[in-house]
């Protein structure tokens, strides 16, 4: 099939989202989780109209693509993702744009200890100065100092 001229191509929108999960998923795994929730929420017909895809993924950020006019539906689908690779996860929408470049400018790489109120994920041996009774996985620096 020949490539369509620009005026006949469908317009697309891109959504930048943050992946909050203890694992480090690949782009394919992110796509699978997203596609699953799009199908669960809107069905195969809705997914076909929306054309969801993950076009970029780096660290905890990823960019998803959809047909113009379906951004809200895509954000809703991203919001209902609760698992990735069998681990609890959340996809948090950050921004919507017409170009990938402008979204990449909005990616903020946070240093672990620089923020005023950093949030720690205490899983396994990452934080080891907590008492044994403390079963919290998600806490802040102040929670640790308190102990």
């Amino acid at each position, binding site marked *: 099939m020949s490539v369509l001229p620009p005026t006949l191509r469908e317009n697309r929108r891109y959504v930048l989202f943050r992946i909050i999960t203890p694992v480090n998923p690949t782009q394919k795994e992110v796509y699978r989780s997203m596609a699953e929730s799009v199908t669960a929420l809107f069905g195969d017909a809705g997914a076909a109209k929306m054309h969801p895809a993950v076009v970029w993924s780096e660290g905890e950020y990823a960019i998803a693509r959809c047909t113009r006019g379906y951004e809200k539906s895509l954000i809703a689908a991203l919001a209902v993702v609760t698992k990735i690779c069998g681990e*609890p996860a959340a996809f948090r929408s950050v921004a919507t744009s017409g170009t990938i470049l402008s979204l990449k400018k909005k990616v903020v790489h946070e240093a672990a200890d620089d923020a*005023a109120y950093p949030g720690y994920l205490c899983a396994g041996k990452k934080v080891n100065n907590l008492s044994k009774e403390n079963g919290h996985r998600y806490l802040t620096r102040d929670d640790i100092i308190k102990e």
Partner: protein
Amino acid sequence: MITDACVYANNSSHTTLRRFALTAASCGFSRIIACDPAEDISEYAGVSILKGRLIGKLSGKAFFDAVKKTPAGTVVFVQAGENSFNRTAVTTKGVHLLTGISDLPKGGFDHIVSKMAAQQNTGVVLDFSRIIDPKTRRTALSRYDEILAFQRKYHFPLLIASGASECLGQRNITEIIALADLFGMTEQEVRSALDSLDGILSPKKTVEIVEERS
């Protein structure tokens, strides 16, 4: 103030109350209500934390006693039950919010409860964790659609809660608007629902003294 009407930061949760507040701040909220919290914190990361108490389906005197014994300054939630219980709960003085609507059978929340809620200024909580959970999603969307129709007619206060028991369950405002769109709630309605707690906790009086003359 933009409020998340309910998070469960109790002992069984893996997330501390501070972490809930921190996540709420990053999601654009300025206030959260922590239901039966394990810790006593009033503010963290610029987010004010209100204490909430959830009263389950109790019968007769036990219910009224539970409402009476709730300390001042605590937001009182009542778990919705049968139609007659909901009518009692909504009209009881001291009850602020009715929650658990999505678990009700069809007709559990009718036009009479709606009218009473509007008269008594009692809020109805839409728990978005029910939409996120695929098992309860269909029922929740259908119930919330019904409630929205009643709200548009009778104008009782509507509130939005993440209902999160982990910080991963909290959603930001853009996501809430997108999720609310699934059952036909407009952005304007979402924004007024996020901001409606003040109207419930300190309702407008019929007569207000503006200036006292000696």
